[in-house]
Every structure is written in structure tokens, then in C-alpha cells.
């Protein structure tokens, strides 16, 4: 039997519930804060163990705190997911039917694309041909903003990508729906939407940009891990906090440890 959940675990879980997803560095800070608040024994770098206890209790509720990597910044995040979901029901209570249909169509566009993104123009075209109920231009823009605010999509220069929250929460759904059509990273074996591809026509493996950065770190002659052809793409820099171990505490300049009232006034 798993050890019972203490107040520190419950507080951690409550914070996860209200935030949906948090970065690994914030999770580490939260771990410390929860233990200190409730006088629980705290050991830095034991975040995984701490979360495992929570997950053991969440199992019978078909929930799970899952770790995933962001395609954008390569950092790790923890998300509270519903394990039974085989559809995008997570969003069902927050959006109307036609908005959900638009989201599915946007996801289709993104998965289909080489860049792992969909332009607002293409999404607007979809909105015009929805089966449930068409969305006008202004309504579409409003819904897209909502998707971004609720952390399902990211937006940059008019291009929309799936957020880390979306990928972590809906990975199961996406693998079921898209099967072989969805790209998978050769290095970490997770879904890869924004990625680099081997140019060898008989190889064509895909690798996340952060995974490229880590795999080819300090290699002057980068070669495809599968077919050994020269890797022709620009090797990105390793994301900042990944140069330490993923479990280490954040440096004091980056993050305050306890949520104070003034911090709460910022939108998290």
C-alpha cells in the first residue's frame, strides 16, 4: 500500500488542479513550499517520489500527474491529466460544440503540417465550413484567444501551435485518432509536431528541436542517428535550465519559493 497523502501532498495537488500545468522548476518550488507549510519532511530533488505518492492515490480516480516536454522551450512540465479520456472531453464543459469542432480541425491542420503549426488564415477557412455551426471571423478570433488563454494553443506571429498542456493531456487521444499519421520524435519517442527532419528520402526521421539540441550538443559533425547522413539543419542552443539536471532546484534569481499575496495578483 502506498503511504497516505499528507497535507503537503494535498496542497500540491490542489495547486496542480487550479493551474492545470506547471513548469518543472515551479513544481520543485511548490514541493518545497508545500512541505514547509505543513511541516513535512522535505528533501530537495525528491520531487518524483513526492509526485509518485500522489499518483498512487489518483490511480483509482483515473487521474495522473504526467511529465512532458514543451516543444517550444524544451523545458519539462507537469500536467494533471484524466487518464480515461479518449476524446477532447477535457474541454467539453468550457466550449460550445462548434468551438470544439474548430479545435479538432485546428489540430488536424497542425498535425498534417510540416511546421507543426497552422496559420490563422487556414483556421478561419475551417471556421467557415464547420458542420455544427459556422463561426464568423470575429467569433473565431475570440475562440482562438480563449484557446490560448486556457493554454491549449500557443500563438506567435499569426501561427498557432499545440501547447505543451494540450500535447501532454491529449497524447492518448491524438495517437488513437491519427495513428501512423502523427510524427514521433526519434530521440524521446513522444509526439513531435515542431521538429527537424532527416533529409534522406529513405530515412526521414523526425526529432524535436530541443531533442536535437541535446543530442547533437557539442558535435562538430552532426549525423542522423538512424542513417548517419549529414544532419543539414541548424542545431539549436540547449534551453537554459536544462544545462543542469532536470531535478535541481531553480536558482534563487529565477523564482520565489512561496506564493505571496503580491505574487497572486499576477496571472499565473
Amino acid at each position, binding site marked *: 500500500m502506498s503511504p*497516505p*497523502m499528507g*497535507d503537503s501532498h*494535498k*496542497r500540491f*495537488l*490542489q*495547486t496542480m*488542479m*487550479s*493551474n492545470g500545468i506547471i513548469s518543472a522548476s515551479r513544481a520543485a518550488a511548490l514541493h518545497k513550499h508545500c512541505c514547509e*507549510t505543513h511541516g513535512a519532511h522535505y528533501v530537495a530533488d525528491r520531487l518524483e517520489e513526492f509526485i509518485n505518492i500522489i499518483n498512487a*492515490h*489518483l490511480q*483509482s*480516480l*483515473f487521474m495522473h500527474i504526467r511529465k512532458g516536454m514543451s516543444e517550444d522551450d524544451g523545458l519539462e512540465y507537469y500536467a494533471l491529466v*484524466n487518464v*480515461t479520456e479518449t476524446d477532447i*472531453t477535457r474541454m*467539453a*464543459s*468550457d*466550449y*460550445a*460544440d462548434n468551438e470544439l469542432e474548430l479545435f479538432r480541425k485546428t489540430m488536424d491542420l497542425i498535425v498534417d503540417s510540416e511546421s507543426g503549426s497552422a496559420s490563422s488564415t487556414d483556421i478561419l477557412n475551417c471556421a467557415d465550413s464547420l458542420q455544427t455551426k459556422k463561426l464568423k471571423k470575429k467569433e473565431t478570433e475570440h475562440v482562438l484567444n480563449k484557446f490560448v488563454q486556457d493554454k491549449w494553443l500557443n500563438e506567435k506571429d499569426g501561427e498557432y501551435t499545440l501547447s505543451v498542456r494540450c500535447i501532454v493531456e491529449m497524447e492518448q487521444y491524438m495517437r488513437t485518432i491519427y495513428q501512423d499519421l502523427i510524427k514521433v520524435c526519434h530521440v524521446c519517442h513522444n509526439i513531435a509536431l515542431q521538429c527537424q527532419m532527416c533529409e534522406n528520402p529513405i530515412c526521414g526521421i523526425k526529432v524535436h528541436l530541443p531533442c536535437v539540441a541535446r543530442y547533437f550538443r557539442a558535435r562538430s559533425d552532426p549525423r542522423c542517428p538512424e542513417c548517419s547522413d549529414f544532419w543539414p539543419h541548424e542545431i539549436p542552443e540547449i534551453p537554459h535550465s536544462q544545462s543542469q539536471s532536470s531535478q535541481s532546484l531553480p536558482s534563487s534569481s529565477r523564482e520565489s519559493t*512561496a*506564493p*505571496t*499575496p503580491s505574487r*497572486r*495578483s*499576477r*496571472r*499565473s
Partner: protein
Amino acid sequence: MSQRKKAVSASQNKTQRRSQVCLDEDDEDAHFSQITSSQVQRAREHFTPVQIDRKVAEVVQFILIKDQKKIPIRRADIGKHVIKEYKAIYTEIMNRVCRKFDQVFGLKLVEIDPKNHIYILINKLEPIHGEPVSMRPGNPKSGLLFVILSVIFMKGGVIKENLVWNTLKKLRVDPGEKHDEFGDVKKVVTDEFVRQKYLEYVKIPHTEPVEYEFRWGLRAEKEMSKLKLLEFVGELFGQDPQSWTQQFREASTAETSSQRS
């Protein structure tokens, strides 16, 4: 599964739907009280432990989703949408649901309306010093609510709405203007906080033009520690909380009675 659509149509035909909903609820609720012990026994034998476990998980999910939006949960809705054919063992399922909320989340399912069987989830964890409102972490509106609840409490439990607006204006939150963080402040205070049962916004009879007053809502009564609120106000003004004798008495009484529950 578009619950949002339901909410929209409900607000459109409020009076018509209310009578309809009451009818449905009476049917649903009547069913609960007519269950015999032999029905319970048969149900327990009919469903496997795995199935019952699954039902408990579904009820927990249902309540969490509703509570996320701070919508009070009706027993009738739980019965109709989740428990369905397992109704005979409703009590057993709900007992386990309550235990789960306590043991896993540190939350408590509290009945705020015993007549209509309406519940809310409140936080059992001690609010942290410097976090005096026991609301979900990361919500900027909790500060706004806290100020309003404080003013109401310090002024004896009911105040005219003007006092709230003037207080907020002093804090550079103008209900007449769109606020960066809160948007339509008046709507948040008079609609959202009221729907969530944190505040009551009631018409004062025989006023012309119509005036409203604010009181604490049922959820605030259950969730907020008046003592902690008074301590915070004391810190703000550099005074001993006990210097407000009436408020201190009320806060202490509220504290002991909530500890008993």
C-alpha cells in the same frame, strides 16, 4: 455533452425552466428517499466492485468539474448524469466520494442547501499565513473578493453597494471602467461572485431609484475564517484584532462552530 449550452439556455428562460427543473428534481429526489434496503442489497450484488469503483471516480470527476467553475452541485444532477442505474447504492457511493475528497484532495463536500440538496466543495487545508482567503491558488480575483468580504464583515454583515464601489475606487478599481486584470468589475462582483455564492446582492425594498446591498454568501460563510480575516485587517491597520470587540466576538464564535463541524 455541451454543459455550456445548457447554462446559456437556462439563463434565458429562467422562470419557465425553474418550474420545470423543480419538477424534475422532485422526481429525482423522491426516488432517493424511496429506496428500500433490499434494493440496496440487490444493487450491491449486481454491480462488481470494479464497476462501483468506476462510478465513484466518475462522481468525483463530475463534482470537480462543476466546482472548478464554482457552480454548486445538485444531488439530482449527480443522480441523473452520473449515478444513473446505480441509484440504489447512492449513499455508499457518496460516502466513498467524500472519503476520496478528504484523503486525496483535502476537500470537503458541504451541503449548503439541505432542502434542495445542493453541495459545494470547500478547502479543508489551513489557509497559509499571507494567503488568508481559502481560495484556489493562482486566482487574481481572490484579492478583490477578500477586500469586499472584509468591508462587509467589519461593517456588521450588510452594506449598501455604494460603499463597495467607493472602497474599490480608492484601490484604483473602478466599476465604471474596464480593468486590466478583472475586466468588467461590476459584472465580476454582482454576477460572478454572487453565482459562486461568495456574495449576496439583494435589492433593498421600497427604494427609488433601486438600491442594492451586499452580504456574505453561503460559500464565504463556509470557507472563510473570520478570525483570520480580522487578523489580516488588524495587521493592515496596525491594531490588535481584539480592539474591534464586536467583530472579534463574532469571529471567535464562527471559528468554534466551524471547528465543531
